[in-house]
């Protein structure tokens, strides 16, 4: 119907516009249907449907600095880091698995403990600045007896499953999780922490994130320098 009408018109600028518009009317659905599942894919970063490809000490530079990625999504496990060997291990809490032979600090969700070590919070957010600080001015705190949540599945029944654990109260300040509101409010301390290992060596840690590229929580990124 429309085509017949347009053909009958004398060619004028207006009719040109009309014909062009008519073609657009016919063609646009075809063009858009080619993008049936959406357009502008290029606006977004695509990680191919995968999470962070590698966990552990993924970057280690000659000056002793590097980056650690940790999957701390499991409530039932500790992730143990060995700064001497740049290795990572996990133990299951509910299965009462023993700690491995070598480790320095361990992370469970956002809780952190040390292996008979201590930790101090610096006022700075830069690893180099923290490394240059006078250590005598830092107050180191050892781990204390505490408990960690190991079972969230009963939360909707009004209670949680806990397990006794040592936790370093200073290191665990890297992230404040305020659960008084829904959803909880997460606040990074953005401070560098100095950890004194069992053998007396020191590491500087900066916890820079608690989510992965897909914004899933429980994925921790640590910038570190070891030894100082």
């Amino acid at each position: 119907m429309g085509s017949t009408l347009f053909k009958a018109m004398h060619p004028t600028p207006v009719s040109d516009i009309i014909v062009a518009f008519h073609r657009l009317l016919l063609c646009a659905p075809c063009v858009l249907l080619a993008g049936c599942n959406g357009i502008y894919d290029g606006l977004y970063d695509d990680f191919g449907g995968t999470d962070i490809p590698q966990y552990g000490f993924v970057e280690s530079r000659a000056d002793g600095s590097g980056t650690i990625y940790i999957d701390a999504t499991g409530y039932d496990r500790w992730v143990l880091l060995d700064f001497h060997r740049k290795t990572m291990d996990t133990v299951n809490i509910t299965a009462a698995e023993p700690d491995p032979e070598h480790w320095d600090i361990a992370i469970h969700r956002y809780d952190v403990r040390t292996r008979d070590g201590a930790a101090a919070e610096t006022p700075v957010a830069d690893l180099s600045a923290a490394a240059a600080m006078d250590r005598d001015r830092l107050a180191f705190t050892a781990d204390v007896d505490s408990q960690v949540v190991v079972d969230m599945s009963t939360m909707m029944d009004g209670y949680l499953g806990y397990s006794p654990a040592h936790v370093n109260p200073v290191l665990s300040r890297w992230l404040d999780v305020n659960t008084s509101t829904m959803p909880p409010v997460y606040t990074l301390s953005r401070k560098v922490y100095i950890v004194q290992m069992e053998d007396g060596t020191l590491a500087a840690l900066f916890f820079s994130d608690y989510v992965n590229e897909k914004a899933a929580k429980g994925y921790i990124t640590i910038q570190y320098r070891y030894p100082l």
Partner: protein
Amino acid sequence: MNLRLIVLPLVILGLFPSVAARGQDTAHNACRQLEALVVTATRTPKLLKDVPVVTRIISHHDFESLDIGHLPELLQAELPGIEFTYAMNQQLSLNMQGFGGNGILFLVDGERLAGETLDNIDYARLNLDNVEHIEIVKGSASALYGSNAVGGVVNLVSRNAGEPWSLRLNGHYGSYRNQRYGASLGFSRKRFSSETHAQHTACDPIRMAADGDFGTLYGNHTWHIKERITVTPTDKMKLSARAGFFFRERESQATVHDRYRDFSGGLKGDYAVSGRSALTVGYTFDQYDKSNYLLTGGYDVRTYSNVQHTTRALYNHTFNPSHTVTAGGDVMRDYLMSYQFGGDGAHRQYTADAFVQWDWTPDDRVNIVSAVRYDYYSLSAASHLSPKVSAMYKLPRVTLRATYAGGFRAPTLKEMYMVFDMANIFMIYGNPDLLPEKSDNFNLSAEYSHSHYNVTAMGFYNHIRNHITTYWNTALNGMRYANMEPVGLAGVDLAASARWDNGVGMRLSYTYTRERVTAGGMQTSSTRPHAATLRLDYRRRWSAGTCTVALGGRAMSAVTCDEYTSYTDLSQTARRTYPGYMLWRFNISQEFKRGVTLTATVDNLFDYTPDYYYSNSPATPGRTYAVGLTVDIDKL
């Protein structure tokens, strides 16, 4: 409730007549709006007074003089029984007299909007800058609009460029750096017209005045850009093309912001086949995306995309002045990729519908409109026939209306295929075997209209079957969507409005809603039973221009409901009462010279703050202030 919250407005109300006596000049009266053309209730243009279904209009004069740019804020101010509250993670959630966001259909020029969050569309997309008026039809409209129109339809009707050219600039600045800036450019030349709109909004985070389920409202900013071109090649034909872009960012976390984008476009052709027949065909595209923007690394990762392609045809034919038949159909391709499908999975389905409506006016006093629509959904293989019959009888000064309508809501792709790990706490599963929600809606109303006065009374009852919700599934050890027991919703709406020649106007509305839930005799509805709104205004034309002073009030009653205290044991409940509240808004608008209008607003006039911010408390930090400026360059 604080006594001064009630007394002071009444004192102001008492002062109005004396002020009004000095007022002069207004062209409006309460009946004049009845002459307005509406399209939503019957999908054909009809005068409001001739529509057999009660339709409420909010004109652009109302929200422009009030300097309101956010649709939820406007609807709450103008209609009782509407409450927008915060669901999980500060997602805006609608309750309109017991109907949630998936029971009320929101349209822009008759087109649906893609995307949802917690059963609600993104209300921030509904930019009022280029809206001519808003039509609200209560009661089921599935016979014309299909799924989701179970409780009603809200249709935003855009403005058309009528002047040779027009340019409007507007700005709004308020407490917490709440900002809104917009520009509208229009051209109209013989058979060609163009409308271009751009708007930017921003607001800082807002700390609430007390503890609660939410402590700080996220800061956010938005961008809207719209373009519409209309060509009228012949007197019988009109072609239009439109495109739009929307962007919103919320500062929801320290290292992650939520981003929302929408890309839309459409082509439409209207053809007057004869003096009695008209044909409309169209194609629309709407893509709504959600993504996470990671401040560390600058990654922008899409987690959700809803893409809808719709083709449509609509045909009207008037056999004689007494009979008009409207028939039409739509075919839609609906694609949804979501983080809630597990592994960013995706599903798609096709929907098709056909409907026919017969509009019969046997004489000047009687109008009967009946319609039936058939909908088909490919994935669920669900089909449904939705009937509707409306009748109107006019007496001198009184109009009686009655409607029966069958409502229908198809299970969404999310409700059928969700596989979502809720923060390692429990899983939520979809259910491909869900049945569509169905409803029977009965509506009776009487409207008195004479001179300066208009009074409307309406009663309604909705019986909803196969209500879709989540419940604990022991076998799956998680939540699962399922059809539940019937729900009954009944209520009464009362409204009285007046507009006197001395410039004073008022509108008082009240609604009562009663929700009947049969599950174990518990009252699980959190719908507030009583709600009222009041608006008083005074318009006066000075030598400098028109001045409008407006006072708006909104009162919501307390509500007591039974809440489940355990998701796994539905026998464990606790009774909780949420307090009522009352909010007032004062606004003054002055046109200084033709084309320049300045407004000043005090919102939450009496500085009300809840003792505790429940999720259904008003999200107000207390009294706020704002100023606005609109300049019509072409009128200077």
